């Protein structure tokens, strides 16, 4: 067996050009398949990762605007208070954003002010420094605020400097009590995260000023029965309008569904491209292996005339193909994963801000199995055919 391996290596070395061509074909084929698969999946991962912007414990309720928006469908703070008392609801707050010009020292920046409840789960991002808004702040309408990392950057300062200071936001002031972590900014930028979170009671006093609400955000206790709670809230608001309007709830599962559909399509497209590259790679490998048939048929004739048995010839050609497949696939895996890793770390992550683990295993296995089958089939089959021939015919083969 070792002797046959040596012979196979010897033949591969003697026919360097053919060997290198086959290896390059295999390498590029396998590499392209892996790179496309890996990058496709990494892209989908980056997109979906960047779109997880909503707390899983809350839902948003709003009038159904499919037939157009009617100002009468908006609801009152009293109705919001009733929702806040419903079963499974921890807190119900207005959902809104106001653009203000914030001033800190000599710096000004356009920022969004949004209401938050006394529960830290209303924060769009975890805290990086300071504390969150409390129920006490909400109840006593304390003018405190939690800033996003983005706001701190826009004000050209840092968390430790701004923490505890008074920030001027529009016509109002607030004391900065906390700074949130940097949000992963998405490849598709749904920038829903507000810059300045203030207690919603302060927000209603300063910005709502008795106006009705278009949207409310509801924090629930038990997410498994969130759908029931959503129906209850929708039903309550519809009943308040005497059935004139309907309301709907949007939660993270709703967005997840939309995203899943989108990424299903992206995945399908990526899979199709991958399949095409597999076929192209397969044809390339096949061609290179088949091109040498004439010469190899004569070679097999010579070997048979000399006294090689059919099994010996087949074993040797199989070993040659197997060596090609192993080396080509190994190079291809390195090439494909290298290219995938490079593009992912230098471009994808920079654009999306989401670090995606490369889903390499499946792609690598798929590419290797496919390439190995093609190589073994098209490396061995012509040899099988030629080994069946009479040595005389094989020698005459032109």
């Amino acid at each position, binding site marked *: 067996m070792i002797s046959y391996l040596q012979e196979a290596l010897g033949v591969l070395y003697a026919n360097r050009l053919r060997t290198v061509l086959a290896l390059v074909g295999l390498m590029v084929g396998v590499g392209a398949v892996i790179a496309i698969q890996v990058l496709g999946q990494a892209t989908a991962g980056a997109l979906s990762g960047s779109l997880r912007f909503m707390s899983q414990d809350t839902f948003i309720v709003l009038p159904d605007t499919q037939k157009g928006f009617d100002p009468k469908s908006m609801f009152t703070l009293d109705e919001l208070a009733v929702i806040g008392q419903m079963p499974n609801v921890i807190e119900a707050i207005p959902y809104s954003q106001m653009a203000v010009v914030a001033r800190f020292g000599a710096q000004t920046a356009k920022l969004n002010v949004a209401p938050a409840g006394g529960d830290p789960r209303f924060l769009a991002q975890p805290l990086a420094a300071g504390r969150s808004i409390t129920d006490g702040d909400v109840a006593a309408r304390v003018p405190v605020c939690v800033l996003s990392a983005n706001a701190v950057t826009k004000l050209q300062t840092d968390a430790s400097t701004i923490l505890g200071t008074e920030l001027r936001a529009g016509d109002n002031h607030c004391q900065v009590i906390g700074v949130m972590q940097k949000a992963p900014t998405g490849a598709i930028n749904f920038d829903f995260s507000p810059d300045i979170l203030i207690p919603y009671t302060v927000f209603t006093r300063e910005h709502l000023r008795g106006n009705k609400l278009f949207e409310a955000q509801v924090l629930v206790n038990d997410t498994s029965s969130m759908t029931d709670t959503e129906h209850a809230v929708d039903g309550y608001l519809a009943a308040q309008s005497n059935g004139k309007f309907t309301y709907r709830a949007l939660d993270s599962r709703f967005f997840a569904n939309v995203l899943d559909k989108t990424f299903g399509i992206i995945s399908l497209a990526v899979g199709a491209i991958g399949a095409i590259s597999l076929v192209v790679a397969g044809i390339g490998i096949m061609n290179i292996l088949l091109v040498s048939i004439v010469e190899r048929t004569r070679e097999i004739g010579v*070997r048979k005339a000399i*006294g090689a048995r059919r099994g010996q010839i087949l074993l040797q050609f199989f070993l040659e193909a197997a060596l090609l497949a192993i080396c080509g696939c190994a190079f291809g895996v390195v090439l494909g994963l290298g290219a995938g890793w490079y593009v992912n770390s230098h471009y994808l992550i920079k654009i999306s801000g989401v670090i995606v683990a490369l889903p390499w295993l499946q792609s690598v296995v798929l590419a290797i199995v496919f390439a190995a089958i093609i190589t073994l089939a098209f490396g061995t089959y012509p040899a099988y055919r030629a080994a069946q021939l009479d040595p005389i015919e094989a020698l005459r083969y032109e």
Partner: protein
Amino acid sequence: MNDNGYAIDVRDVAKTYKSGSLEVQALRGVTFSIRRGEYVAIMGPSGSGKSTLMNVLGCLDRATSGTYMLDGVDVSGLDDNALAQIRLKKLGFVFQGFNLLPRTDAIKNVALPLFYAGVPPRERIAAAKAQLAEVGLGDRGDHKPNELSGGQQQRVAIARALVNDPAVLLADEPTGNLDSKTSVEILGLFERLNAAGRTIIMVTHDENVASHAKRILRVLDGLVVSDGPPARSAPADEQQRSLIKS
């Protein structure tokens, strides 16, 4: 082994090719024997059946009927793998087109039969080098076929045919692709090998080439039509025959 001094003993060997409904009788029952150490030329025009005879003698093809004893072994009924084994152990081939493996150096080409015989690499290389030296190419072992002249390639092919120490060396138009000067060299090599005891069978259509052999079998229409030593010249041949007859 049934050792009766014959390298080859052929009795009533016939070969019929079938292509569709058409049957071609390439050999119609030939009988002859060749002793060890003989140097025989098989002659005949194209279509005479000499190539078929060569293929049967070389165990590349099986006779349709008749018996063929090679070096005391009946090879008539053997299967493909057994025939391969016979070719490996008892026969050496030299072809018109040399048929060396391209891009493979002379030593490896010569060592190829030993690889299939299961000889370890080091011994293979040593034997191949020795055999190359015997055909006068001891200094060209690392040359590839495309770096060698036609005559040198044919010597490599002869070395490869001999490396297994076969009972019979079969040469099919060995000078067909060579110029006359190189042909003489190759034929000289055959004569030396024969003088050293090799049994050589050579197929050719060239009278000059055949005249180097010690015995000529003439094949026509699938039959051996004459069997005898070559004539130095045609009239002398006639004289000899008339003398023998009278």
